[in-house]
């Protein structure tokens, strides 16, 4: 071609990639202007770069973009004195949040409904304590998110994770049922019966029909 487009000569590129100071600032500045518009010369600079430095640079970016933003739940937990990493563990998975909310809502609704109908809450009492556990199990099954990936490096830690999440869900169930209990008043006994096994109390009070193993 008669009208060849200018590209940076090897020597200029070498000087640019070497420590600053190798080429004078005017030449560097004009190369910089050229780089903004030239794929080919950017590629030539890239080819001269250290692979390991680029790799490090990429990992630093990944470290930030793979860290999920703090959710409302996490911020509340941190306010309450839970450490940030634990808060992420506990609230990190959307599945956990959904399962926990669903289970709590179901338990509370069932409790309210059954106490409205009759003092004897019967079969629901048997099932209710298992719901939080199901919720935790469902949450544990989903480990595809960043919090799950980093949180479950080994099966052993996974068990600890289930227990910690279970503690949080059970606490939430307990608090909500306590509130419902106060609101309903008369049905208090049934509510307490239901909560007792859920939180693992060995014996709730004299009227309790459950004795939880352990």
């Amino acid at each position, binding site marked *: 071609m008669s009208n060849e487009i200018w590209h940076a000569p090897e020597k200029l590129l070498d000087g640019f990639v070497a420590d600053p100071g190798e080429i004078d*600032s005017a030449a560097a500045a004009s190369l910089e202007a050229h780089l903004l518009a030239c794929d080919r010369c950017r590629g030539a600079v890239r080819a001269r770069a250290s692979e390991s*430095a*680029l790799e490090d640079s990429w990992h630093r970016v990944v470290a930030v973009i793979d860290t999920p933003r703090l959710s409302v739940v996490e911020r509340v937990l941190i306010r309450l004195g839970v450490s940030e990493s634990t808060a992420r563990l506990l609230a990190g998975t959307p599945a956990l949040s959904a399962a926990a909310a669903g289970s709590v809502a179901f338990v509370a609704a069932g409790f309210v409904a059954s106490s409205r109908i009759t003092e004897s809450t019967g079969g629901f009492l048997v099932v209710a304590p298992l719901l939080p556990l199901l919720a935790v199990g469902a949450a544990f099954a989903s480990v595809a998110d960043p919090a799950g990936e980093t949180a479950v490096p080994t099966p052993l830690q996974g068990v600890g994770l289930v227990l910690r999440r279970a503690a949080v869900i059970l606490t939430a169930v307990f608090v909500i049922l306590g509130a419902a209990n106060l609101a309903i008043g008369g049905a208090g006994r049934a509510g307490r019966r239901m909560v007792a096994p859920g939180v693992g109390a060995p014996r709730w009070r004299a009227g309790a029909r459950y004795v939880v193993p352990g």
Partner: protein
Amino acid sequence: MRVQTDAQLLSAISEGDRDALRTLHDRHAAWVTLRLRRRCSNSDVVADAVQDTFVAVWKSAARWDGRGEPAAWIWGIAIRRLIGALRSRDRWNRDRLTDVVPESDVITTAEDQVLLGIEHGDLAGALGQLSPELLAVVQATVLDGLTTREAAKLLGIPAGTVKTRMMRARTQMRGALA
């Protein structure tokens, strides 16, 4: 395999495509890092700025208006991240990352823009006529695309000085390019 343009990569990134970000990083991190290193000798500060640049690209790719060179857009973010990093290295707020994506607020004149289109040799020649302090101002405003205020921060001189030096530089370059 089809090679994607930077513009296509940015649009994929705006839809959450991490591989696209990785490719974009691979193409641009090297020259961005080198160019920042010419403006800041502290390699840790530069590494922070490069990291924040690509995090900002990840979060804000949708804000690229589709005009001009993606490389210029990335550079606009990078140089502002460097200024941010230099200003308050220890306590800058990462949550405000998206605030640093450049809007169309660059103050260079049409005449200045012509400089960017000049052949390498001629531009180097014209810039070579300038004293180091005038060159630094031209570099910050015309080549880096900073506002007067941003250039003042980067160079550690008052905004008024940036303006007067820029005027002197224009006069000298007009002579050199004539």
